[in-house]
């Protein structure tokens, strides 16, 4: 490892950009956009260096470790494993996309907007690279509030309701998690005599069953709300519908992944016994989420809401894959997270392209757009198919692996899940048909002449996602290799675990 603090650079470059923005006149839009883009790009470029992660080397690489609050054993520890590497790359890339896309549509309080977006980046990236539970919690909360502002200031008509709901849901979960973190730390401290928040020290420690069960519930709430998992998902459609397009991209693309990441990084290795014992419940909820999300998506009249509910279904796959505890399931879960981030981010971006022109997202108001906007339709089609899980595109690999993992767990679970894959084809294709093929609605005819196909800026924002969705679909090797070691560790951690005191739950 060279002396350059790479991870700090990735995390805090956006913060430096935000700080610089404070001193730029609020009306100088060009400079503001340029600084925001440069800061995000710089962070992205730094993160590319992570591709050099040595899959045969130490678990956590690019480590940084500095004392912070020594009285309580809190340290500034950062490091990445394969899982964090892919998520950091996803985050920096999607942030750049969101910032580029925002150039056109965001016209009010431009400076505040980019400051918020950059701070959001800091929080999200920090969560992925922290190896100290206190540091992790700080970043976790930092990632929450910028999104609160993004929805609340630049959102749609019911933005305040949506954003308050979003914050309060998330805050309840995360505050309970804070108590759980402290309880775990203190239990570990009382046993060993040293108080530490270090992730590496705390995991794999045999905590008492009661503590594990309670801490699991608290961690579960925090992460499940973020994922969001049925029945804690109700904030998501509201937040998505009201959020500006770039907000939706980040929300679907990265923020939901914080929840999935939390489960894989914290719940399973820290509390393996409780995880194993509670797994049947969580698998049950995941299956419900997969099914419920798909069914509800079918009847959504609003494009964004449809994609939001489809996220509930897709993230259900992630949870299912995570809690069947085998190699395929876990790899599928992680792959599904990446793929969902790319496809859903792109879909929200594309919905935004249309919304900027018509200020409407009613599916019933559309129709026949293929004739007017062929290139736009092609792109929308590409990501629709990716979302359905067409082989050759990114969505397929994740879902396939998860179902494979689920089969090893229970044939029934896998069977239900496979049926839902058909449902997802139904709602996505039906939506695509109503928007792009049928006869244009009367409402759309009034806008017909003013419609334009994708602009250069929109192409620019979308381009990396197009490349990724295909690349991830045909050549999953590198990503799978990156995540295989973390997955093995998780499988190892939960292997043979279980709470003795509680016995089988059924």
């Amino acid at each position, binding site marked *: 490892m060279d002396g350059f603090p790479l991870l700090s650079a990735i995390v805090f470059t956006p913060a430096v950009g935000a700080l610089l923005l404070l001193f730029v006149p609020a009306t100088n839009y060009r400079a503001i956009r340029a600084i925001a883009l440069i800061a995000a790009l710089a962070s992205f470029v730094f993160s590319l260096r992570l591709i050099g992660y040595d899959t045969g080397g130490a678990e956590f690489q690019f480590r940084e470790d500095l004392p912070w*609050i020594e009285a309580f054993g809190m340290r500034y520890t950062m490091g990445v494993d394969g899982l964090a590497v892919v998520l950091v790359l996803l985050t920096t890339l999607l942030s750049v996309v969101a910032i580029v896309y925002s150039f056109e549509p965001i016209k009010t309080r431009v400076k505040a907007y980019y400051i918020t977006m950059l701070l959001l980046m800091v929080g999200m990236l920090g969560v992925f690279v922290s190896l100290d539970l206190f540091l992790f919690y*700080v970043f976790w909360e930092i990632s929450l509030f910028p999104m609160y502002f993004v929805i609340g*200031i630049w959102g749609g008509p019911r933005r305040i309701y949506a954003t308050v709901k979003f914050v309060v849901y998330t805050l309840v979960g995360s505050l309970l998690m804070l108590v759980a973190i402290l309880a775990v730390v203190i239990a570990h401290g009382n046993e060993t005599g040293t108080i530490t928040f270090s992730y590496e020290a705390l995991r794999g420690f045999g905590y008492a069953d009661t503590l594990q069960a*309670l801490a699991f519930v608290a961690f579960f709430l925090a992460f499940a709300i973020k994922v969001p998992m049925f029945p804690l998902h109700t904030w998501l459609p509201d937040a998505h519908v009201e959020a500006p397009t770039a907000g939706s991209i980040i929300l679907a693309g990265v923020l939901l992944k914080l929840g999935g990441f939390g489960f894989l990084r914290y719940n399973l290795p820290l509390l393996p016994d409780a995880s194993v014992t509670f797994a049947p419940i969580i698998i049950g909820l995941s299956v419900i989420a997969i099914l419920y999300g798909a069914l509800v998506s079918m009847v959504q009249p609003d494009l964004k809401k449809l994609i939001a509910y489809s996220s509930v279904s897709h993230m259900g796959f992630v949870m299912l894959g995570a809690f069947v505890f085998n190699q395929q399931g876990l790899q599928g879960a992680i792959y599904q997270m990446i793929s969902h981030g790319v496809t859903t981010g792109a879909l929200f971006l594309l919905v935004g392209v249309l919304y900027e022109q018509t200020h409407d997202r009613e599916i019933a108001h559309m129709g026949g757009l293929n004739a007017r906007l062929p290139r736009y339709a092609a792109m929308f089609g590409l990501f629709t198919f990716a979302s359905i899980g067409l082989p050759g595109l990114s969505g397929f690999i994740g879902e396939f692996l998860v179902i494979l993992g689920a089969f090893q767990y229970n044939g029934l679970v896998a069977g239900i899940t496979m049926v839902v894959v058909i449902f997802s084809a139904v709602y996505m294709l039906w939506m695509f048909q109503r928007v792009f093929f049928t006869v244009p609605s009367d409402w759309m005819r009034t806008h017909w002449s003013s419609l334009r196909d994708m602009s250069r800026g929109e192409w620019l924002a979308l381009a990396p996602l197009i490349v990724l969705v295909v690349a991830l679909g045909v050549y999953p090797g590198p990503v799978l290799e990156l995540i295989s070691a973390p997955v093995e560790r998780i499988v190892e951690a939960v292997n043979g675990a279980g709470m003795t005191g509680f016995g089988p739950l059924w």
Partner: protein
Amino acid sequence: MDLLDDLVTLLPELILAALVLVIITTDLFLARRYKSVLTWVTVAGLVLAGAACVVVWNINETVYEGFYVVDDLSVFFKATTIVIGIFSALFAPSYLAVRRIPLGEFHMILVSALIGMCVLASSSDLITLFLGLELMTMPSYLLTGLHKTDRYSNEGGLKYFLLGSFASAILLFGVAWIYGLTGTTNVAEIAAAVDGTMSGALLVAIGFLTVGGTFKIAAVPFHYWTPDAYQGAPTPITGFLSAGPKLGAFALLIRVFADALAPLRADWLAIFLVLTVLTMTVGNVVALTQVNVKRMLAYSSIAHTGYIMAGLAAFANAGDEGAAAQGIESVLFYVLGYAIMNIAAFAVVAMLQRDTGRFGGLNSFRGLASRDPWRAGAMAVLMLSLTGIPPTVGFFAKLYVLLASIEAGLAWLAVIIVLNAALAAFYYLRVIVYMYMRDPEPEPAPLDTSPLGSVALALSVIGVIALGVFPGAVLGLLEVSAASLF
């Protein structure tokens, strides 16, 4: 030269007392347009007193026949007192000037109250304790009613005075019972006398002391004076009232309950737990319904009292000395952090009251972000800190209390605290919603942009963030301070 040595230990108090005299005399000879000099005199004096705190740090001596103790705990309280004093002195002048409230009187009464707080923190005898308490609260009554031509100020002052004296009397009655039972008023001797023996009479004494003490910190159900007193008082003074006398009262609780009655902690723990839960929950629920930010902050200050009390409960329930010390440390840290953020929050409300017809309603905050991004940003940071969001001092203070509670085996209390914090997020974030997500009023409230207040606000916000990111800077001091008790 024993007397002289003893005097040195009183250096901060002596400087403050001298400062009172200097302010009165300077005020006499200053022409009206030079009155602002008084603020500088006050601040300079306070800084000097702060420096004196460094001198008396690490002395740990009981002086004046056991009536007065200069231990590190008291010095920490004194230093915090002086921080409170400096911020109060900086924030108030422009608000007072608009309302023609005499500046000299304000500074002089403020510093007197600070002396009371210092005496309270240093008392090792219940008589000194009561003396300090009165020296603190009498000026507080005056400050509340300082806006003589304002009915609400008068009402607040009068209510505070009547109920406050009543509570002081109850407290004094408790002191009398203690004296009757133990034959002493000295804290250390009381602790020795009550060791392990609980009696019905002692329970009565504890009851009186609890009622009197919790009235002063405004714990539920003895909080009814708070909203009216806080709302009636001139706004920057409300900031002081919410931090200063509260700090003094917690010093009192620590001296009485964590020192004199420490051997009986198992007996007073139950009542404290009930009061703690009641206080934070009622404070938050009622704050939720307020549409006036000043009154909302008043109720929220009750909720914060509850969080601080949790630290005392942790002290009482702790299994070992380390955990008990952590309870006290969490109280100290919370009081310090709370003082900085709350005084500043009230100050922002005051800045929006440049127009004397404004009373700090939520609507004054409408669209503040587009009118004055810096002040709105500062207020947003303060609100997030009061909610307990990292990386701010409010977060670390709450974390400290949670840590102490869990360490002391009160994990359920920690859960109640965080649920309360989530509840509090509703009303703190409402202010942010009004500032950032609503359009300004057609005729927005004029803003007070005096440089003095702006600098103090900037200092507060820097303090809030700096202490949140690097709390380690004071943790060492806290440890030493809390150790004085053990």
